[in-house]
């Protein structure tokens, strides 16, 4: 527990983000790439895109979750260490958008994993994605408080 709290202390300084394309047209993913590239540059805020969920604090999900991706998305979510937050980027992930009646969907995302922040748009602008991830920080902050309370109770 001491070890966890030690890491929680440094949490607000840096947020590591990973992404999962659950069947997106790639539009949202291109906007995420724009978010990490020099024009928007989320690293200014201490955020960083990482290649594995095992290092991530926030999971950004794009796409309406096709049947092919359901188990994979769930596994990626489960592989993230606690505390974690999920940001759903794009209309597809939030509601299925134009694909909402498709036979091939298990989504939207919140049917598979708990979502903390929805970023709407088709695709959303990088500013909106940055705002969404910043809101995820608030969620993680509250989780941090909960973990600390649990730590005190022990």
């Amino acid at each position, binding site marked *: 527990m001491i*070890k*966890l709290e030690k*890491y929680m202390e440094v949490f607000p300084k840096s947020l590591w983000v990973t992404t*999962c394309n659950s069947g997106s047209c790639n539009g949202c993913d291109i906007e995420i790439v724009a978010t990490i590239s020099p024009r928007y540059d989320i690293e200014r805020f201490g955020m960083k895109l990482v290649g*594995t*969920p*095992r290092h991530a604090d926030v999971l950004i999900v794009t796409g309406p979750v096709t049947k092919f*991706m359901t*188990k*994979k*998305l769930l*596994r*990626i979510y*489960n*592989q*993230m*260490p*606690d505390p974690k937050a999920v940001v759903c980027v794009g209309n597809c992930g939030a509601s299925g958008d134009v694909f909402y009646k498709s036979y091939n969907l298990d989504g939207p995302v919140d049917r598979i994993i708990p979502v903390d922040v929805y970023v709407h748009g088709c695709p959303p602008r990088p500013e909106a994605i940055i705002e969404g991830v910043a809101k995820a920080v608030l969620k993680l902050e509250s989780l941090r408080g909960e973990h600390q309370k649990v730590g005190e109770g022990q």
Partner: protein
Amino acid sequence: MGKVFTGFGYWDVGAWIIFFVVAAFYVLWLRYQGRSDYKKGTEQDEIYWSGNETPEDGDGLTVPASSAYWGFRKALEPFYDRLVGMHTGIATDILGFYILVTAFMAAIILFV
């Protein structure tokens, strides 16, 4: 004791043991810096394999050299075919080639 003089310098067992102890200290220290609060026995403890189930069989985890170097192998096919043709698989032949190549390189170094 424990020292082998090569003519160019020496090879010391004690120095190597000290090196490995120092290296092991740094490796273990780096490892200790990692997070230890993973939930053991859950998926948090498993290898990330792009969201797929981690293959039990080791073969599924690696790309064979024949796949990784396919283009390289194809481009140098005449060269490789000749090498494979020369390869008998007999240890004395391999050693003979080794001695010949070493002698050839020594001749280049000494006389050229």
